């Protein structure tokens, strides 16, 4: 007997399969969000999903919830407006690294400072996926992208420092570490105040392939090799994943 996929109730199944590339990490994050919501028994009425613009920005539209697809970078102020207008609502954001740290970076600085009670999940693929693979604020140093053909020279944004600097919930995980990522979202959703989950995710089409990965499986294996879980720290190292409350 196959197990019934009850978490699918949070998705608009008539919109599936989604239009993301085969092997894209975005679908994994959708599933993680659904599972965490199911575990917490989130009511569909009373929960609102918000996304910005990008491949990841399409996330909100797949949920069988009231959802808002904001302008590029503006998911946070929209989500804050929703939450502050009706504190009863569970307000979640799923958006991209370019959206949340680049064009919307100033809002992240201030939403965390205001400690608005929303949960933000960043699909952090270190690239501008939707627009063809340009360098993003989380692209690693020396990484080759469409706009850094000789390798990126700029330091990636220190999201952990920004969020924990305001004493907010910060968690980092990867699409490979499925159960760990799920735990991060589960705890973030229960946190009162601003919570931020950064999930390292693969974009095979506009990033991995340019950096010599043959497929997204290889990218997932690189997360397995490169990231170690650390449950006992208040500052994650570059190669660590974990939760800082």
């Amino acid at each position: 007997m196959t197990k019934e996929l009850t978490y699918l109730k949070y998705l608009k199944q008539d919109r599936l399969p989604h239009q993301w590339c085969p092997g894209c990490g975005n679908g994994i994050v959708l599933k993680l969000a659904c599972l965490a919501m199911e575990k917490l028994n989130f009511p569909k009425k009373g929960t609102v999903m918000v996304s910005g613009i990008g491949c990841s920005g399409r996330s909100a539209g797949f949920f069988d919830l009231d959802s808002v697809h904001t302008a590029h970078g503006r998911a946070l102020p929209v989500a804050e407006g929703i939450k502050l207008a009706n504190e009863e609502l569970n307000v979640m954001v799923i958006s991209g690294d370019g959206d949340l740290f680049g064009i919307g970076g100033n809002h992240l600085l201030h939403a965390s400072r205001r400690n608005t009670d929303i949960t933000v999940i960043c699909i952090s693929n270190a690239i501008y996926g939707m627009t063809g693979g340009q360098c993003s604020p989380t692209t690693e140093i020396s990484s080759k992208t469409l706009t850094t053909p000789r390798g990126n020279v700029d330091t990636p944004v220190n999201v952990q420092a920004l969020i924990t600097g305001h004493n907010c919930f910060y968690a980092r995980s990867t699409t490979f570490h499925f159960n760990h990522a799920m735990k991060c979202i589960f705890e973030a959703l229960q946190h009162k105040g601003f919570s931020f989950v950064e999930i390292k995710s693969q974009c095979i089409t506009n990033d991995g392939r340019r950096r010599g990965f043959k497929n997204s499986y290889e990218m997932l294996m690189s997360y397995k090799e490169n990231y170690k879980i650390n449950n006992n720290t208040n500052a994650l190292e570059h190669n660590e994943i974990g939760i800082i409350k």
Partner: protein
Amino acid sequence: MTKRLLQGNQAIALAAVKAGLNFFAGYPITPASEILHELVNQETIKVLQMEDEIASINAILGASLAGAKSMTATSGPGFSLMQESIGHAHMMEVPLVIVNVQRVGPSTGMPTFPAQGDILQCKYGSHGDYFPIVFYPNSVAELYEFTFNAFNAAEESLSPVILLSDGYVGHLYETIEEVDYPISERTLAPLGTSNRHFTGLTHEDSMPVTSDPEVHRKLIKHLEAKQKKVSRKYNNYEYIENKSSDILLITYGALSRAAYDLKEDFAIYRPVRMFPIVEKIKEIAKKYKEIVVMEMNAGQYANEVERLLHREVKLISIMGGKIDLNEIWTKLRRIKKGK
């Protein structure tokens, strides 16, 4: 009814509260800040000072979708920053009120001096085609009244309505009656009650459809028809007929107050609903040989009027924030002699 001495900006804030305002987000800017200052003292209203005007308009957009009647207030520089999200609000059909107390631009310009340089930006400032409802009162009492109209039109049209003012009218003190004008209630169900998707992408039944021109055409047609229909409820203008004059002087906002002194010599038409342009002007204009638009910009409304009337329109442009009757007279005399 109570009579009260109020500043223009203060009148907007107090009228907004009476018109049902629940949520305000803004960023300080001269000459609009008094609206924010007034509202922070209202205990029933949620007021946020945001990090910039982009955050402000997006916060009220979210709040409005969540069920709160919402407003922001700014001046030119902030209004420029809001443009992308104004188009977004039209596309998602979100009721909002956006107040723009104009100052001299472009850029930082003359922060404390009045201007009317944002007229076309109201209509064309965001990319793509949209059909905003724009009001521009010229007195404290009218600012008070049209704040109600702006909220009502926003609810009825499900769109962001622009309430224009300027540094002169915004800072003017006048005694007004605090009338309780009728209020249009919210019809849009708040977030958290359904499974709708609000998106700026071209959409049908709240789902993105990004490669079907027919869907896009239908959507834009729907937006245009809706705005036209609602705006018909607000055919607001002032017309002072003058049978002995063959010149019709069109003027609005701060500058129109100076024009009242000219009513013995000219017919005067003052639009209050700036956009969509009140069609009545076509009929009125027929009675006059010469049409003159006088405004505090380089001819923004004059071009719109000329296009609508299909005839030559003369321009008196009063720039730099100074309203001087002598200058106006000199320019008008030149036009009078010219014919």
